[in-house]
């Protein structure tokens, strides 16, 4: 093809383009882009970020940029302050750019400033996207749905041995062992715990733990100290997917003051600091140990109570026994004393009474004796005298009568009769006073006062008339 018209050197063209661009893009512009790679050169301190725009994961625009040392330091400092994130790969930014064309380096954007608020919103959006995605995949509560570890004793510890968080965490566990004898075992799986590298190293350690998971009860992700920069890694979808689908409960203690990261939200248990996480683990031991101790105390208490009750019953019975015995004794004694008193008083009374009676009797007797003996003496004398008098009289009378009788007797004696002329007739020795008793012709004897004669009855004249 023949040349028609003028030709330009490359430089001339570049200069022309440069001129056109400069005249067209006369000011600075706010442009939204994602920092695909920051490309920081530590030696110079300059950054040459690769800016992209993606749609559905594909790059639809791409441009190089320059971030000079001074601007980088200022902007990075603002980001650290506002986002708690440094300028890094993958971050979306709203930046103030100047379009520049260089004959050697071509088209690029000179970044003069960045709005951290935009990036912050974007980070938050990224976090929300992560949560949304996990939710859609049904993974958000996957780890939390794992059964409660009965005793989280064996811990797969993802941490950094040089970090403060690791020190805090292990110190609490060691203290618990010392104080309560709780036995923890932990094995360290070292990882970077913030920034871009964290996402990769933590996932690597999770894969290692997976191989030996039967030896562990839980996974603990422990971070602390070293500032709160680079926490966005915990909102990373890939990392969170790995965490939530892990077959052991994942515990987090990643110590920061900002909003909860996704990792903390999906964790089986989250504590705000490594120390708190360790304390939570200790608490799980307490939860088993305290009821045990309570049982022990209750046992001791109940045991003592049983013994104390028995002792009390015994003492009660004993007291009752003593009291009863004593009251019996007292009542017996009282009864006895009463009886004795009664006995004593009644015997005294009786004694006295009898004594009195006796005395009375004695007096009566003495008196009576005296009276009687006097009166009896008198009456005896009298009687005697009377008797004597009577006797004399009787005797006199009798004598008179005797004299009289004697006289009569004298007068009636056969001799006297015979003297007076009467005679006694007998027949056969038998005195006769009736003629009928006389037998005729039989001798009769006739006694006279002086002498006797015999006669013979010749005739008898019976007299009918009584004599």
């Amino acid at each position, binding site marked *: 093809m023949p040349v028609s018209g003028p030709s330009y050197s490359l430089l001339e063209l570049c200069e022309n383009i440069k001129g056109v661009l400069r005249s067209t893009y006369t000011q600075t512009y706010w442009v939204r882009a994602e920092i695909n790679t920051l490309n920081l050169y530590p030696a110079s301190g300059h950054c040459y970020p690769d800016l992209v725009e993606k749609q559905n994961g594909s790059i639809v625009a791409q441009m190089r940029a320059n971030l000079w040392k001074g601007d980088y330091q200022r902007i990075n400092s603002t980001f650290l302050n506002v986002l708690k994130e440094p300028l890094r790969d993958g971050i979306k930014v709203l930046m103030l750019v100047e379009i520049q064309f260089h004959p050697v380096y071509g088209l690029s954007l000179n970044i003069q400033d960045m709005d951290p608020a935009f990036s912050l919103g974007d980070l938050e959006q990224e976090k929300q996207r992560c949560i949304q995605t996990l939710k859609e995949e049904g993974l958000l509560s996957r780890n939390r749905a794992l059964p409660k570890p*009965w*005793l989280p*004793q*064996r811990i797969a510890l993802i941490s950094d041995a040089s970090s403060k968080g690791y020190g805090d965490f292990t110190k609490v566990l060691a203290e618990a062992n010392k104080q309560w*004898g*709780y*036995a*923890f*075992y932990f*094995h360290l799986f070292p990882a970077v715990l913030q920034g871009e590298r964290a996402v990769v190293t933590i996932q690597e350690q999770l894969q*290692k733990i997976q*191989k*030996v998971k039967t*030896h562990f009860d839980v996974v603990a992700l422990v971070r602390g100290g070293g500032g709160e920069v680079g926490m966005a890694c915990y909102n990373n979808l890939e990392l969170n997917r790995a965490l939530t689908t892990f077959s052991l409960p994942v515990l987090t203690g990643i110590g920061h003051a900002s909003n909860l990261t996704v990792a903390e939200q999906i964790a089986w248990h989250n504590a705000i600091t490594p120390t708190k996480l360790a304390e939570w683990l200790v608490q799980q*031991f307490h939860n*088993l*140990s305290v*009821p*045990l101790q309570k*049982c*022990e105390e*209750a*046992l001791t208490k*109940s*045991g003592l109570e*049983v*013994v104390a*009750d*028995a002792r009390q019953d015994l003492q009660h019975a004993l007291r009752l026994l003593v009291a009863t015995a004593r009251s019996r004794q007292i009542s017996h004694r009282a009864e006895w004393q009463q009886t004795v008193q009664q006995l004593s008083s009644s015997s005294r009374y009786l004694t006295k009474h009898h004594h009195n009676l006796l005395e009375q009797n004695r007096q009566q007797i003495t008196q009576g004796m005296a009276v009687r003996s006097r009166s009896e003496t008198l009456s005896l004398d009298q009687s005697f005298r009377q008797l004597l008098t009577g006797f004399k009289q009787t005797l006199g009378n009798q004598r008179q009568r005797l004299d009289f009788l004697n006289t009569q007797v004298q007068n009636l004696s056969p001799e006297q009769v015979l003297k007076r002329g009467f005679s006694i007739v007998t027949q056969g020795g038998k005195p006769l006073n009736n003629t009928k008793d006389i037998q005729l012709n039989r001798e009769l004897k006739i006694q006279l006062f002086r002498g006797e004669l015999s006669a013979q009855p010749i005739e008898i004249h019976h007299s009918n008339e009584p004599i």
Partner: protein
Amino acid sequence: MSTKETYKASFDELQKIVAEMESGEIGVDELADKVKRASVLIQKCKEILSKTEVDVQKILDGLDES
């Protein structure tokens, strides 16, 4: 029997003894036996809390396989 089951069984039995004692069902005669049994159970449970049976070598062997 796993550690958990051992612990649970021991603890359950322990609580039963405690309940019995607290309700006054245990007399002085049984007391010594029950307390002896309870202290064995307590000891057993305490040991579970104070001992970890971890074979570190097995963990390391497991990590090396890859």
